[in-house]
């Protein structure tokens, strides 16, 4: 029920004075209400729930998970014993 799917905004228009749009979900295009994400631009991504965009997906924040993983990798490398440690 609380399913939210990211989709790309391909068109915006007004209907009954409400901001609407066409949103592409990997080839399937649906009509979506964009009234609560008025700042969104064509080509950007929104999180859609039952035909309604709840949130504008933040591209920079989306990278944070992977930045976190990179930091974890670096820590792993620091913690791993180097070959020299083994021989001495």
């Amino acid at each position, binding site marked *: *029920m*609380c*399913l*939210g*799917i*990211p989709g*790309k905004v391909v068109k915006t228009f007004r209907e*009954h004075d*409400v901001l609407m749009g066409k949103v592409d*979900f*990997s080839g399937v295009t*649906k009509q979506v*209400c964009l*009234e*609560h*994400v*008025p700042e969104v631009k064509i080509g950007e*991504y929104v*999180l859609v*729930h*039952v*035909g*309604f965009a*709840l*949130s504008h*997906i*933040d*591209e920079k*924040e*989306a990278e*944070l*998970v*992977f930045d*976190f*993983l990179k930091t*974890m*990798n670096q820590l792993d490398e620091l913690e791993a014993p180097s070959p020299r440690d083994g021989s001495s």
Partner: protein
Amino acid sequence: MKYLDEYRDPEAAEKLAAAIARTVTRPWTIMEVCGGQTHTIVKYGIDEVLPEAIDLVHGPGCPVCVTALEMIDRAHAIASRPGVIFCSFGDMLRVPGSRGDLLQLKSQGADVRIVYSPLDAVTLAAANPERQVVFFAIGFETTAPPNAMAVWLAKRRGLKNFSVLVSHVLVPPSITAILQSPGNRVQGFLGPGHVCTVMGYEEYIPIAEHYGVPIVITGFEPVDMLQGVLWTVRQLEAGTATVENQYSRAVRPEGNLQSRKLIEDVFEICDRKWRGVGIIPKSGFKLRYEYRDHDAERLFEVEDIETQESGECISGQVLRGLKKPHHCAAFGKSCTPQTPLGATMVSSEGACAAYYAYGRHLAGRSPRADTPAQLVQIGGGK
């Protein structure tokens, strides 16, 4: 698909699972609030790649599952009326009421329709002015903005033949009720990412502080969920209890202010009965007085509702995290998605339906009883 595939990367998931294993030193019980998260856990076998010390219990966050039986029976009675077009999300149609489900009613000739969005029901009302269009407005805070928008739009367009049967529920009072229950064993929460896109997470801060439980607002893909578990475990091991936001690509601290304003305009907070749980004070939304002309409960008076639950079903305990689906004697036997005894076996977000769909009822497939699912399965999702 952008913003989905990268969060299903097996290598990233494996690294996070390994980090969790390195961090944990003792047993912890963590509840994922949302039914969508339960689905991800079971689908990708996330519970099976975690150390045994981590017990993931499934929360009440399936709106279809917690909609009170009285409300299902009321929907049934309204949908039976001549001249009514009764619209609902698909999941609700097979939820067993005391006198059968909405799908059976449809097969008997009632005009029951599945809609993708509440806004589609408004369009249907505009196209059928001679009919009464009733939409079954269930859901958590996530679904409140589209439902509120439908009512607001119908009022503005003067569509007097559009009404909603409201059974909205709220997450914070439900997790507070879980924390206050005598048998509670939940020590940390994966918070409901999509609910928080709307409401933000500020209201969770006093809960974390008061009950001393970490709450990590978490997304719905495997990598999101494993990171959510890692952050929760780190807090549990360190003895801290704060709110963290793992799902920052979609969730801002204050949520969506426009959505919150519309919800405030259309709905007000009320006590709400949860199926299998009981009445939780201030745990739901009802329509404000200004929108009474669109309130199906007022427009279609239904009397003499006598509810009858299945005696075997333990879904109430499953929804409170006290039991898991395979603890039920009926699970996979007299209760299947084809013959559900309780709502948790109907909705795709119900814990019982998720366990059944991914074969947890089969011999040797009870959790922890077999070889952990291979991490390569993460990434194999649709």
